[in-house]
Every structure is written in structure tokens, then in C-alpha cells.
């Protein structure tokens, strides 16, 4: 729906009443126009008909569904939960700082408690001792909630593929994975904006039935079970 920029002045289609008539009259006519009533003191040719009238209204009224409006509101006001685990937390802190200012998009209210947050940025490595805590906090967050796994350690155990770490996909549904070790602040910003676009376009994210996802194990080939047991 491309909203074309149109000067409101006399150059409008059919030219509303009189050149530069006083504002009141122009207000009056557009209200009557929306009610489809006869516009006082307008020349008949100025009154758009049929399709032309439809286009005239459409250019001035934004029609949307409730879902899209709610999604627009939600996606522009994520409250990230501060979940600084390790090195990525320092880079997450610097997106709040002045250079890559996350406040430009309305996400600077970092909430400490999960009750007030709706975006969990998992920044750092999740150890096996920390995994139940992360899952519990994700459960205690209120709906609708999203999760960004920032950095390689969180998405795929990154530099350390050993006994102590768990990839976050193993125990909670993740929406956006931000690569990098640590990802630059701009990379995390791109990840958050990507999540914003995902939420705006389609509130019901499809690829995984979001709210029903219990653990989301990949399919681990069974023949490697013997190695290193």
C-alpha cells in the first residue's frame, strides 16, 4: 500500500473549495467528504466519483487489522531483559552507549526482572550449570516473548566445543541468532531490527510453533553416540 506524499494544498485532485480557502472550510469539507455528504460550495467537477473517490479516501486513511496494529506496537517497544553472561554482555552494554544507540528504536529500557521484559538477549556462553536458570527465566517471562542468542558460544558453542557448554537451541526456542565472537554492537542492532521486521511482517512466526516449543533438539546422528563416550 504505497501512501503517496501529496501536498494538502490546492493542488489536490479536483481542488477542494477555493484557492487557499480558510482552514476551517477545508476541514469541514474533508469531514463531510468522509461521510459522503455534499460538500458545501464545491464545484461539481471537484467532487471525485467512484474509483477516483475510492483512491482519494484510501490515500488519506490507513486501514489495518488489529493484529498488525498490535504487532506494530509490540515490535517498536521491545523491553530487553539484561542477561549478560560473558564477553558478549560487554558488547551488549555498548549498544546502549552513545555510538550505537538502541534508544533510537525504542529498546533502551533494559529490564532486570523477567516479568517486565519481552525480549531475552542471551549474550554469552551458557554452561550446563546455567542452562536450567536460563530456561526458568525464559519460562517466567510474560507472553509474547522473543529470544535472541547473541554470539557464537550461545548459538553453536562457538570457540569452546566441550563438556561445559550447551547450545541455547537445545533447551529454549530462539528467534534470531547473531553470529560473531563477540558480535559488533552494530551486528546485534541488525539482529534486533531483523527481529522487529519479523514480528511486524507476520506476528504468528511460522517456522516453529512458537509458544508450544518444549526442547528443540536437532536430529543427532546416532552412530556418533559411541565416540568419546
Amino acid at each position: 500500500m504505497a501512501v503517496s506524499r501529496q501536498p494538502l494544498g490546492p493542488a489536490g485532485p479536483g481542488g477542494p473549495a477555493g484557492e487557499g480557502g480558510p482552514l476551517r472550510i477545508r476541514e469541514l469539507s474533508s469531514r463531510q467528504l468522509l461521510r459522503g455528504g455534499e460538500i458545501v460550495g464545491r464545484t461539481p467537477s471537484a467532487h471525485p466519483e467512484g474509483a477516483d473517490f475510492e483512491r482519494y479516501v484510501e490515500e488519506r486513511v490507513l486501514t489495518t487489522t488489529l493484529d498488525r496494529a498490535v504487532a506494530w506496537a509490540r515490535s517498536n517497544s521491545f523491553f530487553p531483559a539484561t542477561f549478560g553472561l560473558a564477553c558478549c554482555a560487554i558488547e551488549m552494554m555498548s549498544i546502549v552507549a552513545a555510538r550505537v544507540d538502541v534508544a533510537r528504536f525504542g529498546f533502551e529500557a533494559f529490564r532486570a526482572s523477567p516479568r517486565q521484559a519481552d525480549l531475552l538477549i542471551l549474550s554469552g556462553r551458557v554452561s550446563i550449570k546455567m542452562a536450567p536458570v536460563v530456561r526458568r527465566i525464559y519460562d517466567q517471562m510474560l507472553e509474547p516473548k522473543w529470544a535472541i542468542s547473541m554470539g557464537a558460544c550461545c548459538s553453536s558453542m562457538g570457540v569452546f566445543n566441550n563438556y561445559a557448554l550447551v547450545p541455547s537451541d537445545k533447551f529454549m526456542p530462539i528467534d534470531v541468532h547473531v553470529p560473531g565472537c563477540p558480535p559488533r554492537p552494530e551486528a546485534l542492532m541488525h539482529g534486533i531490527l531483523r527481529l522487529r521486521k519479523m514480528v511486524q511482517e507476520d506476528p504468528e512466526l511460522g517456522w516453529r510453533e512458537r509458544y508450544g516449543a518444549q526442547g528443540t533438539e536437532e536430529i543427532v546422528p546416532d552412530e556418533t553416540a559411541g565416540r568419546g563416550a
Partner: protein
Amino acid sequence: MIGEHTVGDTVFFRGHGTLEIDPATIVPVLHRLRDRGYSFLASVHGVDYYPHEPRLGVHYELLDMGRVDRVTVKLRVPTDAPEVDSVTPDRAAPGGGVLAGWPTANHQEREVYDMFGVVFRDHPDLRRILMPEDYEGHPQRRDFPIGGEPVAFTYNDTPSLGPPR
């Protein structure tokens, strides 16, 4: 107590002295070195000398802040009887009175216990410090597999760490 066969071996490598001592005499040796001036216990850490027996080693890095001199006290315990006296608590001196211990070794001995399985006798609070409380096995031992996710896409990945060949 400190006898003539307490110090098994002394090494002077790259300008740094190391004493290897009999595990039973660790507390008197550290007290003697403290009286000699090495009052600051910088670090207590474990080493797994896998192929050589006795396997589990515990190192005590001592520092004399006055003469800025460092010395390492090393002891080796086998895996079937990994028992060592802890240096953390205050001990009763033989002639009455109390010999102060090294509170700094508290967490460090717990880490050596957690990672290598060396049990420190009458340590005030010997529990696992880094791994979850109910974790089996001591991860830093050489024969403990490094674990982690099997890499799904390569079939020629090097076998797990295991002992060095």
C-alpha cells in the same frame, strides 16, 4: 614431620626453583617456608601427569614479597588414594598454640578437588565449586573425554583428546 627424605626432587628451570616433596609433609613444609619469608601463597593448582605415576600433582606457588622471590612446592598423589592435608584451616602447633593456615587456598583447593578429584583432608567446606553439585567425574583429568557436540558435517574429525600418544 620434616625428615631428610621429605624433599624428593629439586628442579631449577628458567630461573625458578621447584621442590617436589612427600605429600604427607605439605603443611610443615609450607609453615617452614613461611617462616623463611615466603609468606604469600599465590596459587594452588592441580596437574594431571597422565602417563607417569603417581598421576595427580598439586602445585603451591609461594612468593616472598620482601625479596620478590618465587618458589613452587609440588606434590604427587596416585589416583587410587588422592588424599592430601588441606592448608586452609588453622592447625594446632605441636608445642601448643595455633599455626595460622592460608585462607586463600579455600576456593583453590575446592577447584582442584572439583577438577582433579584430589581430596583435601579437614578442608572447611570441600564441595564442587565450578561444576554442578551432582556432576559425576572430574573433567580436567586427561582421560576424561572433552565431550561437546559431535560436529555433524565432517567424518574425518580427529578422535577425542584422550591420552597424548
